[in-house]
Structures are given as structure tokens and as C-alpha cells.
């Protein structure tokens, strides 16, 4: 084979389990375009009725934080426990909070 076989681009898949919930990252698939990515995500990640909506985004379009900056980014929040909303009583009727 003279032509080298190229891997299809990678896409990240987000599934909304049911109406009212947010889309959650479930994994990734390979596909050549957005239409195919939706189809592959459907075939791989919703086989057992896991969702009612799918988002796909090219993995290369995701900008990630630098692990080397983790201390600078995340540690300053450590001693600010007053930001946690643990002082409120949550009414029983409120679901999915």
C-alpha cells in the first residue's frame, strides 16, 4: 500500500441523559465530519437508551488548562470555604441540584 492510512479526527462526545440535565462528557470517537460524528456517537453511546441529546466537538477545538499551572489556577480557592453553599437548607422538592 503506497498511500498511508490516516486516522480520522477525534471528537469528544457529550450526552444529555434526560431533559433538564446537562450534557456530560462520556468519551470520544473518530469521524471525518460532524454528521458522521453524531452518528458514531449515537451508535456507540446511546445503545442502551443513555440519552436524549448528543453534542460532539472536535477534540482539537478544546483548549485545556496547563497541568503545570494547576497550583496557580486552583490552589488559591482552597482556603475560601465560605464560597461553598453549605449554609443553605435545600428544599426536598428541588432535584438535581
Amino acid at each position, binding site marked *: 500500500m503506497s498511500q498511508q492510512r490516516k486516522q*480520522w479526527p477525534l471528537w469528544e462526545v457529550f450526552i444529555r441523559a434526560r431533559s433538564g440535565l446537562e450534557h456530560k462528557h462520556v468519551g470520544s470517537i473518530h469521524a471525518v465530519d460532524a454528521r*458522521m460524528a453524531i*452518528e458514531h456517537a449515537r451508535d456507540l453511546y446511546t445503545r442502551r437508551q443513555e440519552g436524549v441529546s448528543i453534542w460532539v466537538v472536535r477534540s482539537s477545538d478544546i483548549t485545556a488548562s496547563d497541568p503545570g499551572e494547576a497550583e496557580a489556577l486552583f490552589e488559591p480557592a482552597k482556603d475560601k470555604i465560605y464560597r461553598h453553599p453549605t449554609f443553605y437548607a435545600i428544599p426536598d422538592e428541588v432535584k438535581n441540584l
Partner: protein
Amino acid sequence: MSASPAIVTHSASAELRFRYATYLGDTSLILAQRLGEWVGHAPALEEDLALANIALDLLGQARYLLSYAGEIEGKGRSEDDLAFLRDPSDFSNLALVEQPNVDFGHTIVRQFLLDAWQLELFEKLQASSEPRFAELAAKALKETRYHYRFSAGWVVRLGDGTEESHNRVQAGLDALWRFTSEMFAPGAADEEAAAAGLGPDPASLRAAWLANVEQVLQTATLKRPADVPFRWFGKRHQHTDHLSHLLAEMQFMQRTYPGAQW
């Protein structure tokens, strides 16, 4: 109460319902088997699963229809008996679906031509005078809409892709087009079923099918082959040799070990 006309009419209609159910069921079953041959061999893991998913939808349709056929026949034959213990000459699937996979291009074209037909068929079969056919059609239509989305997408992607992919999918189209005329031709269970209100007139499906197919072929930069007088009538039990090879593999286990269970 001997030989009342009502009973005669009913048994004739049961016989027709059996033939119509096996025609539709065999078509789904044989295509499912063909798609199953791709498992472990598709060009990408994702396509492997996609083809297997479609095969499972088709298998579900076949199970529903063959179970119903066995029930209506009243001889105690189950879906498995009908699938695994009939000879090739007893099958009435469209000859299109028994055609070999050849390559991914052929497989996609075969799928696309069939999906576009099932789309029209199931749409109209929902109005069947027999509730069991109507129920099957409503469920299968949703599945088919996805199959069509998948196969039409691939026809465009391959046709309007590289020179290699274009040539392969055009070759598939050239080889398989001759098998499409059977879908709309009279002279089999589907024509009688139409007269009895069981299903749509096969000829009535053609205009919408062709409009759909031509539009996709145009987008895919593919050439629609000329219609030829050559015809196979799988639905009249005239099959290509491919069916007996397919069945030999599919039925091997039940024929070698009758009644074997998992």
C-alpha cells in the same frame, strides 16, 4: 357449519398474509445476515458498530414478521424454524439484499437503495388493514429513517470523496441498480397484498423512491445507471446463487444440530 364462505375467505387471506409477512421478513433477515458479515471487518471500529446496529434493527423486523407468519400459518412453525429450516427456494426476499458485500462501497449502495425503498414502504404500510403490519411499520419507520441518514450520508461522502472512493461506489451502483426494478414490479405477494389493503401498491412507491435516490446521487456526483430489462425476482423465489451460499452459512448450526439451544 361446514365450508362457509367466510371461512374460505379468511384462510385465503391468512395464506396471503403469510406470504406478505415472509416477503418483508425475509428481506430484512437476509440483509441483516449480510451486514453481520462485516462484524470485525469494517473499515473502522465505529463503522463496525454502525453496521451491526443496523443489522440488529433489521433482525428485529424479521423476528416480528416471521413470528407473525408462523402464527398465521398455524402449523406450529416458529420464527427460528422459518429462518433456519427453509430452503433457498422458499425464501422470497428481494434479490438486492442477498448480493454480496464486495467492499464497503457496494455495501453502502445496497443499503442506501434498500433504505430509500423501506422509507416509502413503511410510511404507507402504517395504513395497513392488518394492525400487526401497521404496528411493525410504525416501529420500523423510525429505524429506517436513521438507516437512511447513515447510508445516504456515506453515499455522498464516498461519491464526492476521492477518485478511489467515487469509483468504488459508482461500481457498486452499476452492479446493483438492475436489482432495484424488482421492488416496484407486480406479480408477487406485494401486489396481491395491495389489492387486499394489506400494504401499498409496489408501483406506487417508485416515484418518491426515485426522487430521493436521484437527489442523493446528484449530490454525490454519481451517475444513475440506465434501467435494463434484466430482472431477478427474489420475491417470486427466483434467487441468485448468492442466497444459497448465504443460507448455508446462516443455517449451518440449526441444520447440523437441530433444536440446539444456547
